[in-house]
């Protein structure tokens, strides 16, 4: 589904991704772990198409397409979803307006008719429940005045609405208490199907108690230095990130 080969990307002339490789097949959950500043968030943003990053080398094939050639919105319409570490607040843009516009644009791209208002609202209620967001959400502006936990739930809520094929969740667990973490993880697990895939980027092993990954990768200095199954995360938790320096 997603094949990243020798990806190198920079910002302001400084290379952050230094030959990143990863293959993800439908139905898989991959966890990418690593210390701060190794390029985990950069990976998510480069996949999403953020213009401030420059791709120096490498290729990303997504569902048979050259992902790097697609516009930001077409990547999204092709089913790539990025859950952000710091979701931006957009005062004045209501959640309803935002989601309805997004869903209908995605549907239009896929050649599907618009959702009726009634169906849309019904879906919204359903998915809100899944992530435990209160009903008042609908009248609020995107992320405006949301607590840290609400913002993360809102990311999963949007993921639930858009039903992406490939979700990249960047530090979705950071700043969450254990209850919120359970809710978010439950959301991700519920949305899991044999046809979609998830990349979970996290700093701590904690989230992986709730979202069980098929593969764990350790990222360091812009590339993956070690891959394994879920036990790798536990080993990393025990030995700490200094261990990476040693094996490197």
């Amino acid at each position, binding site marked *: 589904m997603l094949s990243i080969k020798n990806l190198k990307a920079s910002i302001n002339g400084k290379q952050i991704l230094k030959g990143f490789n990863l293959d993800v097949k439908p139905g898989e959950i991959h966890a990418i772990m690593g210390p701060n500043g190794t390029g985990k968030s950069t990976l998510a943003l480069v996949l999403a198409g953020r213009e401030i990053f420059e791709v120096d080398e490498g290729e990303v094939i997504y569902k048979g397409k050259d992902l790097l050639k697609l516009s930001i*919105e077409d990547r999204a319409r092709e089913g790539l*979803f990025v859950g952000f570490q710091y979701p931006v607040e*957009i005062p*004045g843009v209501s959640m309803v307006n935002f989601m309805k516009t997004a869903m209908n644009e995605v549907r239009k791209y896929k050649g599907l008719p618009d959702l009726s208002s009634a169906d849309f609202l019904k879906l919204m209620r359903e998915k809100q429940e899944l992530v435990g967001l209160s009903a008042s959400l609908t009248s609020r502006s995107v992320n405006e005045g949301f607590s840290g936990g609400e913002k993360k739930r809102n990311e999963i809520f949007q993921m639930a609405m858009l039903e992406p094929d490939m979700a990249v969740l960047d530090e979705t667990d950071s700043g969450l208490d254990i209850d919120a973490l359970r809710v978010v993880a439950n959301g991700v697990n519920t949305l899991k199907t044999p046809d979609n895939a998830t990349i979970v980027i996290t700093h701590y092993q904690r989230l992986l108690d709730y979202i069980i990954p098929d593969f764990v990768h350790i990222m360091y200095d812009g590339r993956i230095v070690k891959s394994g199954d879920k036990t790798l995360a536990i080993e990393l938790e025990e030995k700490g990130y200094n261990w990476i320096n040693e094996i490197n």
Partner: protein
Amino acid sequence: MENNVDIIKQQLLELYKELSHSENSLPTFVNKERELAIEKFIDLGFPSTDLEYWKGTNLQKLLNSQYTFSQKLNVDKDIDVSTIFHCEIHNFETLFFANYNGHNLYETKPLTTLENGVIVGSIREAMIKYPELLEKYWNKNNVSGYNGLTALNAAVANDGLFIYVPENVRLETPMQLVNLISHPQELFVQTRNMIILEKNSYLTFLQCDDSLEDNGSFKNSVSEFYIAEGAELDHYKLQNKDLSSVMVNTSFFNVESKGVLNSNIITFNTGSIRNEFVVNLNGKEAFADLSGLYLIDKTQHIDNQIFIRHNAPECFSRQTFKGILDEKADSVFTGHIYVAEGAVKTEAFQTNRNILLTDTASVTSKPFLEIYNDDVRCSHGSTTGQLDKDAMFYLQQRGICEKNANLLMMYAFVDEVVRKIKVEKLMTRTENMVHRRLKGELSSCDQCILHCDTDHIDPYKIDATLL
């Protein structure tokens, strides 16, 4: 060689002479003011960019035509408004008045007294019928001496709207004045309005400035508002003018103790507009909330000059002005807050935010705080920038194309001002116009707020299929 402004000035002085021969019917206090005013105008002339507050609007450049003076036109005052202006009033009832090329239109009588004692209609007629009432207010704002343009207006304006709301009368039906200009020649139009709200009364007043064609015009209007103790005025001004029109509005608001002024001015299209608002908070706990929105492109120019004078203790004022500028449009904003020595516990806030869509659009924003006591809460903020790139990226990552993400962001930006409109139907309609304007679908030819199509209002505001 004489420049055009001097020629126009000369023509106006001649106009004054002609008019003064035929003004015998007007009361002495009016004629006296006219005499004073014309002297002032001779002395001051048209304001020039040498004056600090006129740096942003160059009348010498804008007064560049051969004008026909509206006073000389013979307008059939019993003309059926609907034949020149298709106003389809549906679901939104107003008491409707029209000023056409500087002349009030009326179907039966120029001045009406309603059952509740409200007087409304021609100010000219009111001068004759209720001289003692008007005289009480006539010179309070020093219209004849405020600046060259207001002096000119005081000297030669021939008509305008007069509204009198007696004590304790709360008018639930909004009053609407539509100012229309439509003439084969470039018209020079001057109108003067006076709105008086007695104690504890209430009025919603909607003032629309529209062009019907794009032949160009120069409009110099003065409006005076008196808001007595405990009275409340909701004032809306909608401006949709053609690219060659020039308009200077000077509005004076006088708010007494516990009086409330809410004013919202939305500019959709224009050539050049200068809105000068002078607000005097004269009594304890007077309140003024002023907001404005301008959506301009091409070479459109807007100059909002706001002067708020806190003359009494415990008054509140807020200014919220926002603009989106495209192409070579330019805007000027001056927010002047004056707090008098005795005006303790003053609260005064001001923001001016602008979005520039191109490098060629420009904004000049000047806060000016003049405070003469220590017991004051005051703030001002001004920002000018582009649409938030992080937010744009976020919207696009969810599948929304750049154009629609832009629109969503612009809708969000203007929302704060549009939502201040309290009459729900008017708000929805204005919002619809704003959205159409931002989508490039509203021109100055769309004549009137009442004209816009509201048969289908999407409950989500944005219907993606229409974008």
